[in-house]
């Protein structure tokens, strides 16, 4: 009993911080419909500033607190709303999710660049002087000042918010804006001000949570805050993403359960060591799966928006189609020459890397571009492919090429197995469940011996085909290019084929696709398995490329988010989009940032800026530019040949159809 009470008393403060995050998160979701993963970045920003001012510069605690939580945090919230999310008001949930992931990457990168705290080794400090000072609760249970501050602030914030919603006109207006910002405007309320206010408020919550929880960590590192936000999301999911009291309760419950597990599970067993940190992810996954009354925010005025434009390549003429293909063949040929003939071995390896990432990114093309859903665990599938290749080569002596295919199969099977329970979900909920899976994979599954837990990790050999040894970087490059072409072929065929047609139809209407006799479940599982398989194949190749698999730097969940946003920013519909994203991912740091002497953080900053452009061109910036240039070229062709318009050209999907009518 004593241990039980002790666990509860230890768990409540952590739970309080989770609750604070959950409440802020729900506030943003309720008032702007944005599923704001950038919350982690916002929490980090305040924690980092507080750390800089108080711990490094040794300013007084209260000034640091005011500046970081009550000045910086609302400011960040306002900027996010004003610059980005206001323009995405009528965009899809997924578009907003992607942009918020972009901000999750951008904000910490900018803060670290400005504050220059990346290399400082000091322990974060709480908001009260002498925060570790213990008090004895009931004379026997130690509680520190930091812990007390965590509980008090969480409860205060929740009460404040409840009062705001319940007793003020502002709260009522906020609730109306949730339903439909445009409808509210028709009723004569300036919804943009309401939304801006709620962003500032929720951002303050994030900042406060960040500053409060920082003393629990050894350093101020953005990944901790990302995990904190996932815990907050799990708590918010318990509240169905809309109920503030239930989110609050969920936060406390999560905190207490985590400590109870630590207390009562056998010490030092694999389960005990890994389950406890993974608890929020497990809870999130289960809540998403089993919770029935899922909130969906849908705008009653949504149908007044024009439909999104079709892909630029869908309505170009035959001449232009062959023209672009020819152009790209030349560009790719030149790049291959650049990689193989004109360069040194280092350049070849760089290009090899780009080719492998292009394969991995095509998994995004399949799932997001064709199926229209978002998966945040593509990096886990790639890791499965890499580890499977390694394990099969190491344990069973399977040739690595075979191993890579087996790895792709295993990844596809895991994808299918994951899709089965998730097939009823879509949109945000699917994204959440996959995020939970990615984090679960990282904190639990990777550590098993039969995945990536062996120390030291066996090396992945390069393939050997007859007399061709792929130890040679140039031959390995060619092998990867062949794999890329194969995957691209499959992706294009599936996109233009019946499966692609079905998936496009399903994006149009889920109900109707079933009513014409297509199994939605099978369609989703197929798309997810194909996507996972492609990621797995790419992962296997990446393993061979680097010979030692480094999970955390190549396959972590954060990296997966980065990949997704990168591809989505460029273009998810086309194979070129994936290739260009890969080229950007690998070559940009090497050929642009290095010569300019800019640090790696700038990659993230440019990337975040890219996410902002996404706010204006949700079809992808490349797709937008492509459409513009294509239209102008097409006009020129038309003018020369004296034709009036090309808009009646048959689409690429069914090239023969237009000519028969």
């Amino acid at each position, binding site marked *: 009993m004593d241990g039980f009470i002790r666990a509860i008393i230890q768990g409540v403060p952590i739970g309080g911080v989770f609750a604070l995050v959950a409440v802020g998160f729900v506030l943003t979701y309720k008032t702007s419909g944005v599923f704001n993963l950038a919350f982690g970045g916002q929490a980090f920003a305040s924690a980092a500033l507080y750390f800089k001012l108080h711990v490094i510069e040794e300013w007084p605690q209260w000034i640091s607190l005011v500046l970081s939580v009550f000045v910086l945090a609302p400011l960040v919230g306002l900027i996010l709303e004003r610059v980005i999310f206001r323009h995405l008001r009528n965009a899809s949930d997924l578009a907003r999710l992607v942009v918020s992931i972009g901000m999750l990457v951008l904000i910490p990168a900018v803060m670290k660049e400005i504050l220059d705290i990346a290399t400082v080794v000091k322990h974060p400090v709480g908001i009260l002087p002498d925060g570790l000072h213990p008090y004895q609760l009931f004379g026997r249970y130690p509680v520190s000042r930091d812990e007390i501050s965590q509980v008090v602030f969480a409860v205060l914030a929740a009460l404040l918010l409840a009062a705001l919603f319940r007793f003020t006109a502002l709260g009522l207006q906020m609730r109306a804006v949730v339903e439909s910002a445009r409808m509210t405007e028709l009723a004569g309320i300036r919804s943009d001000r309401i939304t801006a206010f709620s962003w500032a408020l929720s951002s303050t919550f994030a900042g406060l949570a960040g500053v409060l929880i920082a003393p629990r960590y050894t350093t101020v590192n953005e990944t901790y805050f990302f995990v904190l936000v996932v815990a907050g999301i799990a708590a918010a999911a318990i509240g169905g993403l809309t109920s503030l009291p239930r989110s609050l309760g969920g936060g406390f419950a999560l905190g207490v359960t985590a400590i109870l597990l630590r207390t009562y599970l056998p010490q030092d067993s694999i389960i005990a060591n890994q389950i406890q940190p993974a608890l929020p992810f497990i809870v999130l996954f289960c809540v998403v799966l089993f919770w029935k009354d899922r909130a969906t925010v849908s705008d009653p005025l949504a149908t007044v928006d*024009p*439909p*999104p434009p*079709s892909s630029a390549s869908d309505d170009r003429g035959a001449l232009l189609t062959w023209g672009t293909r020819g152009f790209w063949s030349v560009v790719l040929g030149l790049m291959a020459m650049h990689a193989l003939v004109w360069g040194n071995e280092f350049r070849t390896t760089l290009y090899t890397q780009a080719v492998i990432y292009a394969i991995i990114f095509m998994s995004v093309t399949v799932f997001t571009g064709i199926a229209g859903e978002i998966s945040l665990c593509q990096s886990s599938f790639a890791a499965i492919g890499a580890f499977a290749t390694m394990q099969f080569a190491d344990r069973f002596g399977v040739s690595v090429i075979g191993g890579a295919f087996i790895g792709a199969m295993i990844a596809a099977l895991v994808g299918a197995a994951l899709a089965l329970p998730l097939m009823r979900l879509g949109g945000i909920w699917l994204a959440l469940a996959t995020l939970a899976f990615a984090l679960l994979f990282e904190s639990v599954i990777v550590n098993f011996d039969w995945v990536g837990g062996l120390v030291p990790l066996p090396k992945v050999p390069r393939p050997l085909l007859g007399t061709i040894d792929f130890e040679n970087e140039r031959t390995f490059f060619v092998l990867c290019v062949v794999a890329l072409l194969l995957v691209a*072929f*499959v992706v294009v*065929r*599936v996109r*233009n*084929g*019946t*499966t*692609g*047609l*079905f998936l*496009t*139809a399903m*994006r*149009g*209407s889920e*109900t*109707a*696709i*079933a*009513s*014409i*006799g*297509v*199994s*939605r479940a099978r369609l989703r599982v*197929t798309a997810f398995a*194909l996507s996972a398989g492609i990621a797995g194949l790419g992962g296997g190749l990446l393993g061979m490329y680097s010979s030692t698999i480094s999970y955390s730097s190549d396959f972590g969940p954060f990296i997966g988010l980065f990949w997704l946003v990168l591809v989505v920013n460029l273009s998810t519909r086309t194979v070129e989009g994936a290739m260009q994203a890969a080229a950007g991912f690998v070559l940009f740091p090497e050929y642009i940032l290095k010569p300019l002497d800019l640090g790696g953080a700038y990659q993230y900053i440019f990337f975040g800026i890219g996410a902002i452009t996404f706010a204006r061109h949700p079809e992808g910036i490349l797709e937008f530019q492509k459409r513009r240039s294509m239209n102008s070229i097409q006009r020129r062709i038309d003018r020369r040949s004296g034709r009036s318009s090309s808009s*009646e050209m*048959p*689409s690429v*999907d*069914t*090239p*023969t*159809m*237009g000519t*028969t*009518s």
Partner: protein
Amino acid sequence: MNTLLQAVQVTKRFAGITALNEVSLDVAPGEFVGLIGPNGAGKTTLFNCLSGLTRFDSGSISFDGVDLSGVAVHQRARLGIARTFQRMELFTGMTVRQHLLVTDRAHSRSGAMWKDILTGSKARRDELQRVDELLDFLDLGADADRDVAALSLGRGRIVELARALMTQPKLLLLDEPSSGLDISETEVVIERLHEVNRERGVAILLVEHDVEMVRSLATRVFVLDFGTRIASGTTAEVFGDANVQRAYLGGVS
């Protein structure tokens, strides 16, 4: 008389409200049946139960001798139940022709991914022929290559009808096909439904507020009010019934 569709005492409750209260209904092969009732009577709920979108609490539904409990929406479609929707459910972003092509592919079950990869995806001649025939039949030729988002509500309803017919159904469930249509469009629909029913032998269950349309097409009519079947019989019987006139026709007929 053999029956195609047989619903027996179907009951559906939504959080305390009984949307359907032991409703029974049957449709014979090739028959044209009307289903009428005021708004909120449970007509669409019944349709959703028949096509599998909604699970009902008790009762049973069988189609063509198959018990439909536990049969998923898409499987019912394959058995031969097609439907249109009161709130239109079109595949936004696709052309009319693509709507029909995708439906034809779904019907012929040629959606396996490996076929896409191995054989490519050009529309085959026979597919295009079937699509064109249906486009002609419903006068959709002029809109064939337009995005459905660009169509008027009335044309959209006809696309839904075309899509439902493309599955070559035995039973067509039509949920207010004439709402949003102008008079001449309605006449075309009436004429086509007549043909579909007589010449192709497709049984039709029609939910419709346009009483004249029901009267001119249906041979039998069921009437729902507050989730209960208040009348059934031949068209003449039902429209002559005093209860029906009170509940639905407002005493005028």
